[in-house]
Protein backbone atom coordinates (compact mmCIF):
# COMPACT_ATOMS: atom_id res chain seq x y z
CA UNK A 1 0.00 0.00 0.00
CA UNK A 2 2.76 2.44 0.88
CA UNK A 3 4.44 1.86 -2.45
CA UNK A 4 1.18 2.62 -4.30
CA UNK A 5 0.76 5.92 -2.40
CA UNK A 6 4.28 6.99 -3.35
CA UNK A 7 3.62 6.29 -7.01
CA UNK A 8 0.41 8.30 -6.99
CA UNK A 9 2.04 11.28 -5.32
CA UNK A 10 4.77 11.32 -7.94
CA UNK A 11 2.28 11.58 -10.79
CA UNK A 12 2.17 15.32 -10.18
CA UNK A 13 5.61 16.79 -9.83
CA UNK A 14 5.91 19.30 -6.96
CA UNK A 15 7.46 22.02 -9.10
CA UNK A 16 4.36 21.97 -11.35
CA UNK A 17 2.16 22.45 -8.31
CA UNK A 18 3.95 25.69 -7.49
CA UNK A 19 3.51 27.00 -11.05
CA UNK A 20 -0.25 26.35 -11.13
CA UNK A 21 -1.11 27.54 -7.65
CA UNK A 22 -4.68 28.84 -7.74
CA UNK A 23 -4.86 32.56 -7.06
CA UNK A 24 -8.30 32.74 -5.43
CA UNK A 25 -7.85 36.40 -4.57
CA UNK A 26 -7.94 37.30 -8.28
CA UNK A 27 -11.65 36.46 -8.38
CA UNK A 28 -12.88 38.26 -5.28
CA UNK A 29 -11.93 41.70 -6.58
CA UNK A 30 -14.17 41.54 -9.68
CA UNK A 31 -17.01 44.08 -9.89
CA UNK A 32 -20.35 42.27 -9.99
CA UNK A 33 -22.43 44.86 -11.83
CA UNK A 34 -22.42 45.26 -15.61
CA UNK A 35 -24.15 47.39 -18.21
CA UNK A 36 -25.80 45.33 -20.95
CA UNK A 37 -26.51 46.97 -24.31
CA UNK A 38 -28.81 44.94 -26.54
CA UNK A 39 -28.94 45.38 -30.31
CA UNK A 40 -28.02 49.06 -30.62
CA UNK A 41 -27.19 48.25 -34.22
CA UNK A 42 -28.04 49.65 -37.64
CA UNK A 43 -30.57 46.89 -38.41
CA UNK A 44 -32.88 48.29 -35.71
CA UNK A 45 -31.56 51.78 -34.99
CA UNK A 46 -30.66 53.34 -38.34
CA UNK A 47 -33.74 54.34 -40.37
CA UNK A 48 -31.97 53.79 -43.69
CA UNK A 49 -31.18 50.13 -42.94
CA UNK A 50 -33.16 46.96 -42.22
CA UNK A 51 -36.32 47.65 -40.21
CA UNK A 52 -36.47 51.27 -41.43
CA UNK A 53 -36.47 50.14 -45.06
CA UNK A 54 -39.28 47.69 -44.37
CA UNK A 55 -41.41 50.25 -42.54
CA UNK A 56 -40.97 52.70 -45.42
CA UNK A 57 -41.91 50.04 -47.95
CA UNK A 58 -45.07 49.32 -45.94
CA UNK A 59 -45.98 53.00 -45.85
CA UNK A 60 -45.81 53.14 -42.05
CA UNK A 61 -44.21 56.61 -42.07
CA UNK A 62 -45.80 57.83 -38.87
CA UNK A 63 -44.79 54.73 -36.94
CA UNK A 64 -41.27 54.90 -38.35
CA UNK A 65 -40.91 58.54 -37.39
CA UNK A 66 -41.97 57.95 -33.80
CA UNK A 67 -39.94 54.75 -33.49
CA UNK A 68 -36.69 56.29 -34.72
CA UNK A 69 -37.17 59.39 -32.60
CA UNK A 70 -37.72 57.19 -29.51
CA UNK A 71 -34.78 55.00 -30.55
CA UNK A 72 -32.55 58.08 -30.72
CA UNK A 73 -33.63 59.06 -27.18
CA UNK A 74 -33.02 55.53 -25.89
CA UNK A 75 -29.59 55.46 -27.55
CA UNK A 76 -28.69 58.81 -25.95
CA UNK A 77 -29.67 57.48 -22.52
CA UNK A 78 -27.73 54.27 -23.09
CA UNK A 79 -24.75 56.42 -24.05
CA UNK A 80 -25.01 58.36 -20.76
CA UNK A 81 -25.02 55.08 -18.84
CA UNK A 82 -22.18 53.74 -20.95
CA UNK A 83 -20.02 56.75 -20.13
CA UNK A 84 -20.75 56.34 -16.43
CA UNK A 85 -20.00 52.62 -16.37
CA UNK A 86 -16.80 53.11 -18.33
CA UNK A 87 -15.55 55.88 -16.05
CA UNK A 88 -16.39 53.75 -12.99
CA UNK A 89 -14.36 50.91 -14.49
CA UNK A 90 -17.37 48.58 -14.51
CA UNK A 91 -17.84 45.85 -17.12
CA UNK A 92 -19.84 46.60 -20.25
CA UNK A 93 -21.41 43.84 -22.31
CA UNK A 94 -22.65 44.42 -25.84
CA UNK A 95 -24.76 41.97 -27.78
CA UNK A 96 -26.04 42.28 -31.31
CA UNK A 97 -27.96 40.25 -33.85
CA UNK A 98 -25.12 38.96 -35.99
CA UNK A 99 -25.13 35.51 -37.55
CA UNK A 100 -22.15 33.58 -38.84
CA UNK A 101 -23.30 33.17 -42.45
CA UNK A 102 -23.99 35.68 -45.20
CA UNK A 103 -27.25 34.00 -46.26
CA UNK A 104 -28.58 33.57 -42.71
CA UNK A 105 -28.87 29.80 -42.82
CA UNK A 106 -27.67 29.63 -39.20
CA UNK A 107 -30.57 31.85 -38.10
CA UNK A 108 -33.74 30.34 -36.61
CA UNK A 109 -36.82 30.13 -38.83
CA UNK A 110 -38.73 32.71 -36.78
CA UNK A 111 -36.07 35.43 -36.90
CA UNK A 112 -35.52 34.71 -40.59
CA UNK A 113 -39.21 35.08 -41.34
CA UNK A 114 -39.40 38.29 -39.30
CA UNK A 115 -36.24 39.50 -41.11
CA UNK A 116 -34.74 40.31 -37.70
CA UNK A 117 -31.24 39.08 -38.43
CA UNK A 118 -27.99 40.44 -39.82
CA UNK A 119 -24.81 38.86 -41.12
CA UNK A 120 -21.78 39.51 -38.92
CA UNK A 121 -19.67 42.17 -40.61
CA UNK A 122 -22.57 43.66 -42.57
CA UNK A 123 -23.71 47.27 -42.01
CA UNK A 124 -26.97 45.97 -40.45
CA UNK A 125 -24.99 44.14 -37.75
CA UNK A 126 -22.78 47.15 -37.08
CA UNK A 127 -23.24 49.06 -33.83
CA UNK A 128 -24.66 52.58 -33.67
CA UNK A 129 -21.65 54.88 -33.42
CA UNK A 130 -22.69 56.50 -30.10
CA UNK A 131 -22.53 53.20 -28.21
CA UNK A 132 -19.94 51.29 -30.20
CA UNK A 133 -17.90 48.79 -28.15
CA UNK A 134 -14.33 49.67 -27.32
CA UNK A 135 -11.45 47.26 -26.89
CA UNK A 136 -11.79 45.13 -23.76
CA UNK A 137 -15.58 45.14 -23.67
CA UNK A 138 -17.46 41.89 -24.15
CA UNK A 139 -19.29 41.54 -27.46
CA UNK A 140 -21.67 38.60 -27.88
CA UNK A 141 -23.12 38.04 -31.34
CA UNK A 142 -26.39 36.10 -31.39
CA UNK A 143 -29.36 35.08 -33.52
CA UNK A 144 -32.00 34.64 -30.81
CA UNK A 145 -34.13 37.25 -29.05
CA UNK A 146 -32.95 36.34 -25.57
CA UNK A 147 -29.24 36.75 -24.89
CA UNK A 148 -29.49 33.66 -22.67
CA UNK A 149 -30.78 31.46 -25.48
CA UNK A 150 -27.19 31.77 -26.70
CA UNK A 151 -25.61 29.03 -24.60
CA UNK A 152 -22.37 30.79 -23.80
CA UNK A 153 -23.86 34.00 -22.39
CA UNK A 154 -24.75 32.93 -18.84
CA UNK A 155 -21.43 31.18 -18.36
CA UNK A 156 -19.49 34.11 -19.75
CA UNK A 157 -21.17 36.55 -17.36
CA UNK A 158 -20.60 34.21 -14.42
CA UNK A 159 -16.94 33.80 -15.39
CA UNK A 160 -16.65 37.58 -15.19
CA UNK A 161 -18.21 37.58 -11.73
CA UNK A 162 -21.23 39.52 -13.01
CA UNK A 163 -24.46 39.00 -11.05
CA UNK A 164 -26.26 42.31 -11.59
CA UNK A 165 -27.24 43.50 -15.04
CA UNK A 166 -28.38 47.01 -15.94
CA UNK A 167 -30.23 46.37 -19.20
CA UNK A 168 -30.75 48.76 -22.11
CA UNK A 169 -31.63 48.01 -25.69
CA UNK A 170 -33.77 47.58 -28.77
CA UNK A 171 -36.50 46.46 -28.66
CA UNK A 172 -38.33 46.36 -25.40
CA UNK A 173 -41.04 43.82 -26.28
CA UNK A 174 -38.81 41.35 -28.10
CA UNK A 175 -35.12 41.02 -27.15
CA UNK A 176 -35.06 43.19 -24.01
CA UNK A 177 -38.06 41.52 -22.32
CA UNK A 178 -36.92 38.01 -23.26
CA UNK A 179 -33.40 38.71 -21.96
CA UNK A 180 -34.58 40.30 -18.70
CA UNK A 181 -37.03 37.46 -18.00
CA UNK A 182 -34.33 34.85 -18.60
CA UNK A 183 -31.73 36.78 -16.58
CA UNK A 184 -34.05 36.86 -13.57
CA UNK A 185 -34.92 33.19 -13.90
CA UNK A 186 -31.30 32.14 -14.29
CA UNK A 187 -30.31 33.81 -11.04
CA UNK A 188 -28.98 37.17 -12.21
CA UNK A 189 -30.39 40.42 -10.87
CA UNK A 190 -31.57 42.41 -13.84
CA UNK A 191 -32.68 46.04 -13.78
CA UNK A 192 -34.27 47.38 -16.96
CA UNK A 193 -33.76 51.06 -17.79
CA UNK A 194 -37.13 52.06 -19.23
CA UNK A 195 -36.02 55.16 -21.13
CA UNK A 196 -32.90 53.46 -22.48
CA UNK A 197 -35.12 50.94 -24.30
CA UNK A 198 -37.41 51.40 -27.25
CA UNK A 199 -40.25 49.28 -28.58
CA UNK A 200 -41.86 49.19 -31.98
CA UNK A 201 -45.27 49.92 -30.48
CA UNK A 202 -45.65 52.15 -27.39
CA UNK A 203 -48.37 49.93 -25.83
CA UNK A 204 -46.20 46.83 -26.23
CA UNK A 205 -43.18 48.71 -24.81
CA UNK A 206 -45.18 49.80 -21.76
CA UNK A 207 -46.89 46.43 -21.24
CA UNK A 208 -43.57 44.58 -21.44
CA UNK A 209 -42.06 46.86 -18.79
CA UNK A 210 -45.14 46.48 -16.58
CA UNK A 211 -44.99 42.67 -16.80
CA UNK A 212 -41.27 42.75 -15.99
CA UNK A 213 -41.83 44.95 -12.97
CA UNK A 214 -44.81 42.90 -11.78
CA UNK A 215 -43.01 39.56 -11.85
CA UNK A 216 -39.39 39.62 -12.92
CA UNK A 217 -37.22 42.62 -12.10
CA UNK A 218 -36.83 46.27 -11.28
CA UNK A 219 -37.60 48.92 -13.88
CA UNK A 220 -35.96 52.34 -13.41
CA UNK A 221 -35.20 55.51 -15.34
CA UNK A 222 -31.75 56.48 -16.63
CA UNK A 223 -31.70 59.38 -14.20
CA UNK A 224 -32.46 57.09 -11.25
CA UNK A 225 -29.63 54.75 -12.22
CA UNK A 226 -27.22 57.65 -12.73
CA UNK A 227 -28.21 59.25 -9.41
CA UNK A 228 -27.46 56.08 -7.50
CA UNK A 229 -23.84 55.45 -6.73
CA UNK A 230 -22.67 53.14 -9.44
CA UNK A 231 -20.13 50.96 -7.72
CA UNK A 232 -19.67 47.26 -7.38
CA UNK A 233 -22.80 47.25 -5.20
CA UNK A 234 -26.36 47.32 -6.54
CA UNK A 235 -28.24 50.42 -7.64
Amino acid at each position, binding site marked *: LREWKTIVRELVRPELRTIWTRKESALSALPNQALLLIDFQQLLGDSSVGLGE*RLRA*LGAQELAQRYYSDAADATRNAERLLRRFRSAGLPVVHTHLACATVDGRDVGALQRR*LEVWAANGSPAADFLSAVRPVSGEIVIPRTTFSLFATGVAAQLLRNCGITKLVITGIGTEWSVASTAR*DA*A*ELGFEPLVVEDACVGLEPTHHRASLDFLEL*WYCRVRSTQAVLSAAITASPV
Partner: protein
Amino acid sequence: MITEDLPRIFEPQPIHPLVARRSAMLTIDVQRGQVFSLANKVRDAGLHDIATAYDSAVQAILPRIRMLQDRCRARHIEVIHLRFGSFSGTGSDCSQPFRLSGHEAAAWDRSDQIIDAVVAPHPGEIVMNKVSSGAFNGSDLDAVLRRLGVDTLIVAGLVTASCVESTIRGAADCGYNVFVVSDACADWTDQQHELSLAILRRWFATVLDAERILRLIAGVENDRA
Protein backbone atom coordinates in the same frame (compact mmCIF):
# COMPACT_ATOMS: atom_id res chain seq x y z
CA MET B 1 -58.15 48.75 -26.03
CA ILE B 2 -55.78 46.81 -28.23
CA THR B 3 -56.13 48.08 -31.72
CA GLU B 4 -54.38 46.65 -34.70
CA ASP B 5 -53.34 50.17 -35.59
CA LEU B 6 -50.36 48.99 -37.55
CA PRO B 7 -50.17 47.07 -40.75
CA ARG B 8 -49.30 43.47 -40.05
CA ILE B 9 -45.66 44.09 -40.72
CA PHE B 10 -44.63 40.83 -39.15
CA GLU B 11 -46.23 37.46 -39.58
CA PRO B 12 -44.36 35.17 -37.21
CA GLN B 13 -45.54 31.90 -38.68
CA PRO B 14 -47.67 30.82 -41.56
CA ILE B 15 -50.48 28.51 -40.54
CA HIS B 16 -49.66 25.08 -41.83
CA PRO B 17 -51.19 21.67 -41.21
CA LEU B 18 -50.01 19.97 -38.06
CA VAL B 19 -48.11 16.71 -38.31
CA ALA B 20 -49.03 14.44 -35.38
CA ARG B 21 -45.65 12.93 -34.65
CA ARG B 22 -43.99 16.35 -34.76
CA SER B 23 -46.53 18.16 -32.57
CA ALA B 24 -47.17 18.38 -28.85
CA MET B 25 -49.72 20.16 -26.70
CA LEU B 26 -48.37 21.89 -23.58
CA THR B 27 -50.63 22.80 -20.69
CA ILE B 28 -48.93 25.17 -18.30
CA ASP B 29 -49.49 25.32 -14.53
CA VAL B 30 -53.19 24.39 -14.47
CA GLN B 31 -52.65 23.27 -10.89
CA ARG B 32 -54.39 23.94 -7.62
CA GLY B 33 -51.79 26.48 -6.53
CA GLN B 34 -52.38 28.63 -9.59
CA VAL B 35 -56.12 28.08 -9.64
CA PHE B 36 -57.06 28.36 -5.96
CA SER B 37 -54.19 29.46 -3.71
CA LEU B 38 -53.20 32.49 -5.75
CA ALA B 39 -56.79 33.61 -6.23
CA ASN B 40 -57.33 33.31 -2.49
CA LYS B 41 -54.22 35.36 -1.86
CA VAL B 42 -55.54 38.08 -4.14
CA ARG B 43 -58.95 37.88 -2.46
CA ASP B 44 -57.35 38.10 1.00
CA ALA B 45 -55.62 41.28 -0.13
CA GLY B 46 -59.07 42.76 -0.69
CA LEU B 47 -58.99 42.59 -4.49
CA HIS B 48 -62.27 40.69 -4.76
CA ASP B 49 -63.10 41.86 -8.28
CA ILE B 50 -59.77 40.68 -9.66
CA ALA B 51 -59.97 37.33 -7.84
CA THR B 52 -63.53 36.73 -9.02
CA ALA B 53 -62.74 37.66 -12.62
CA TYR B 54 -59.70 35.36 -12.57
CA ASP B 55 -61.75 32.50 -11.10
CA SER B 56 -64.34 32.75 -13.80
CA ALA B 57 -61.71 33.11 -16.53
CA VAL B 58 -60.04 29.92 -15.26
CA GLN B 59 -63.36 28.05 -15.07
CA ALA B 60 -64.07 29.11 -18.64
CA ILE B 61 -60.79 27.81 -20.06
CA LEU B 62 -60.76 24.43 -18.25
CA PRO B 63 -63.31 22.63 -20.48
CA ARG B 64 -61.66 24.16 -23.56
CA ILE B 65 -58.23 22.84 -22.51
CA ARG B 66 -59.81 19.43 -21.86
CA MET B 67 -61.40 19.37 -25.29
CA LEU B 68 -58.09 20.31 -26.94
CA GLN B 69 -56.29 17.60 -24.97
CA ASP B 70 -58.85 14.94 -25.91
CA ARG B 71 -58.72 15.83 -29.59
CA CYS B 72 -54.92 15.76 -29.48
CA ARG B 73 -55.03 12.33 -27.83
CA ALA B 74 -57.39 11.06 -30.51
CA ARG B 75 -54.96 12.27 -33.19
CA HIS B 76 -51.87 10.89 -31.41
CA ILE B 77 -50.48 14.33 -30.63
CA GLU B 78 -48.36 14.17 -27.47
CA VAL B 79 -50.09 15.81 -24.49
CA ILE B 80 -47.52 17.22 -22.03
CA HIS B 81 -48.32 18.72 -18.63
CA LEU B 82 -46.08 21.34 -17.04
CA ARG B 83 -46.37 22.39 -13.44
CA PHE B 84 -44.56 24.78 -11.18
CA GLY B 85 -43.04 23.78 -7.86
CA SER B 86 -39.94 23.14 -5.85
CA PHE B 87 -37.70 20.08 -5.67
CA SER B 88 -36.65 20.94 -2.12
CA GLY B 89 -40.22 21.57 -1.00
CA THR B 90 -39.31 24.96 0.44
CA GLY B 91 -38.99 26.98 -2.74
CA SER B 92 -35.28 27.52 -2.06
CA ASP B 93 -34.45 26.07 -5.48
CA CYS B 94 -37.02 28.08 -7.42
CA SER B 95 -36.12 30.92 -9.75
CA GLN B 96 -35.59 34.31 -8.16
CA PRO B 97 -38.78 35.98 -9.44
CA PHE B 98 -40.87 33.36 -7.62
CA ARG B 99 -38.81 33.50 -4.45
CA LEU B 100 -38.88 37.31 -4.35
CA SER B 101 -42.63 37.51 -4.91
CA GLY B 102 -43.33 35.17 -2.01
CA HIS B 103 -44.96 32.73 -4.38
CA GLU B 104 -45.67 29.50 -2.53
CA ALA B 105 -43.44 26.97 -4.17
CA ALA B 106 -44.27 23.72 -2.48
CA ALA B 107 -42.93 20.23 -2.95
CA TRP B 108 -44.31 18.15 -5.79
CA ASP B 109 -46.42 16.04 -3.47
CA ARG B 110 -48.21 19.00 -1.90
CA SER B 111 -51.79 19.71 -2.89
CA ASP B 112 -50.78 22.97 -4.63
CA GLN B 113 -49.14 20.86 -7.29
CA ILE B 114 -52.14 18.71 -8.12
CA ILE B 115 -53.23 19.34 -11.66
CA ASP B 116 -56.89 20.30 -11.91
CA ALA B 117 -59.10 17.21 -12.30
CA VAL B 118 -60.71 18.50 -15.51
CA VAL B 119 -57.36 18.59 -17.31
CA ALA B 120 -55.53 15.89 -15.34
CA PRO B 121 -52.87 13.81 -17.10
CA HIS B 122 -53.82 10.42 -18.48
CA PRO B 123 -51.65 7.46 -17.53
CA GLY B 124 -48.47 7.44 -19.59
CA GLU B 125 -48.49 11.15 -20.39
CA ILE B 126 -45.47 13.29 -19.64
CA VAL B 127 -45.71 15.52 -16.58
CA MET B 128 -42.76 17.88 -16.22
CA ASN B 129 -41.78 19.91 -13.20
CA LYS B 130 -40.28 23.36 -13.54
CA VAL B 131 -38.74 25.73 -11.02
CA SER B 132 -39.18 28.84 -13.14
CA SER B 133 -41.97 30.56 -15.03
CA GLY B 134 -40.55 29.77 -18.46
CA ALA B 135 -40.32 26.01 -19.05
CA PHE B 136 -37.22 26.40 -21.22
CA ASN B 137 -35.23 27.77 -18.27
CA GLY B 138 -36.38 25.60 -15.40
CA SER B 139 -36.98 22.14 -16.86
CA ASP B 140 -35.65 19.64 -19.38
CA LEU B 141 -38.48 20.40 -21.77
CA ASP B 142 -36.29 21.28 -24.75
CA ALA B 143 -34.30 18.04 -24.52
CA VAL B 144 -37.49 15.98 -24.11
CA LEU B 145 -39.18 17.61 -27.10
CA ARG B 146 -36.11 17.04 -29.28
CA ARG B 147 -36.05 13.37 -28.29
CA LEU B 148 -39.71 13.14 -29.23
CA GLY B 149 -38.94 14.78 -32.57
CA VAL B 150 -41.41 17.58 -31.86
CA ASP B 151 -41.06 20.91 -33.68
CA THR B 152 -44.55 22.37 -33.24
CA LEU B 153 -46.26 23.30 -29.98
CA ILE B 154 -49.86 24.05 -29.05
CA VAL B 155 -49.79 26.05 -25.82
CA ALA B 156 -52.55 26.65 -23.26
CA GLY B 157 -52.69 27.37 -19.54
CA LEU B 158 -51.89 29.86 -16.81
CA VAL B 159 -50.91 32.69 -16.48
CA THR B 160 -50.80 34.35 -19.90
CA ALA B 161 -48.33 37.20 -19.35
CA SER B 162 -46.00 35.30 -17.02
CA CYS B 163 -45.53 31.53 -17.36
CA VAL B 164 -47.27 31.18 -20.73
CA GLU B 165 -45.47 34.15 -22.30
CA SER B 166 -42.06 33.20 -20.88
CA THR B 167 -42.44 29.61 -22.08
CA ILE B 168 -43.40 30.79 -25.57
CA ARG B 169 -40.51 33.27 -25.71
CA GLY B 170 -38.19 30.37 -24.87
CA ALA B 171 -39.84 28.04 -27.38
CA ALA B 172 -39.49 30.63 -30.15
CA ASP B 173 -35.77 31.07 -29.44
CA CYS B 174 -35.32 27.27 -29.43
CA GLY B 175 -36.81 27.14 -32.92
CA TYR B 176 -40.28 25.68 -32.30
CA ASN B 177 -43.36 26.70 -34.24
CA VAL B 178 -45.78 27.86 -31.58
CA PHE B 179 -49.56 28.06 -31.63
CA VAL B 180 -51.11 29.82 -28.62
CA VAL B 181 -54.75 29.10 -27.88
CA SER B 182 -56.06 32.56 -27.00
CA ASP B 183 -59.19 31.39 -25.17
CA ALA B 184 -57.45 28.53 -23.38
CA CYS B 185 -55.14 30.87 -21.43
CA ALA B 186 -56.07 33.30 -18.66
CA ASP B 187 -54.52 36.15 -16.74
CA TRP B 188 -55.41 38.26 -13.69
CA THR B 189 -57.01 40.89 -15.86
CA ASP B 190 -58.33 40.78 -19.42
CA GLN B 191 -56.05 43.70 -20.24
CA GLN B 192 -52.90 41.80 -19.24
CA HIS B 193 -54.14 38.76 -21.15
CA GLU B 194 -54.81 40.76 -24.33
CA LEU B 195 -51.58 42.79 -24.18
CA SER B 196 -49.51 39.66 -23.72
CA LEU B 197 -51.23 37.94 -26.65
CA ALA B 198 -50.72 41.05 -28.79
CA ILE B 199 -46.95 40.93 -28.13
CA LEU B 200 -46.80 37.18 -28.70
CA ARG B 201 -48.76 37.53 -31.94
CA ARG B 202 -46.44 40.16 -33.34
CA TRP B 203 -43.11 38.57 -32.44
CA PHE B 204 -43.29 34.99 -31.28
CA ALA B 205 -46.24 32.83 -32.20
CA THR B 206 -49.45 32.21 -34.07
CA VAL B 207 -52.37 33.14 -31.83
CA LEU B 208 -55.66 31.38 -32.62
CA ASP B 209 -58.81 30.59 -30.67
CA ALA B 210 -59.70 27.04 -29.65
CA GLU B 211 -62.15 26.61 -32.51
CA ARG B 212 -59.46 27.29 -35.13
CA ILE B 213 -56.93 25.12 -33.32
CA LEU B 214 -59.46 22.27 -33.16
CA ARG B 215 -59.90 22.58 -36.91
CA LEU B 216 -56.13 22.37 -37.38
CA ILE B 217 -56.02 19.29 -35.14
CA ALA B 218 -58.89 17.72 -37.08
CA GLY B 219 -56.81 18.14 -40.24
CA VAL B 220 -53.82 16.31 -38.82
CA GLU B 221 -52.47 13.56 -40.93
CA ASN B 222 -52.59 10.66 -38.58
CA ASP B 223 -49.16 9.37 -39.47
CA ARG B 224 -48.48 7.96 -36.03
CA ALA B 225 -51.11 5.23 -36.26
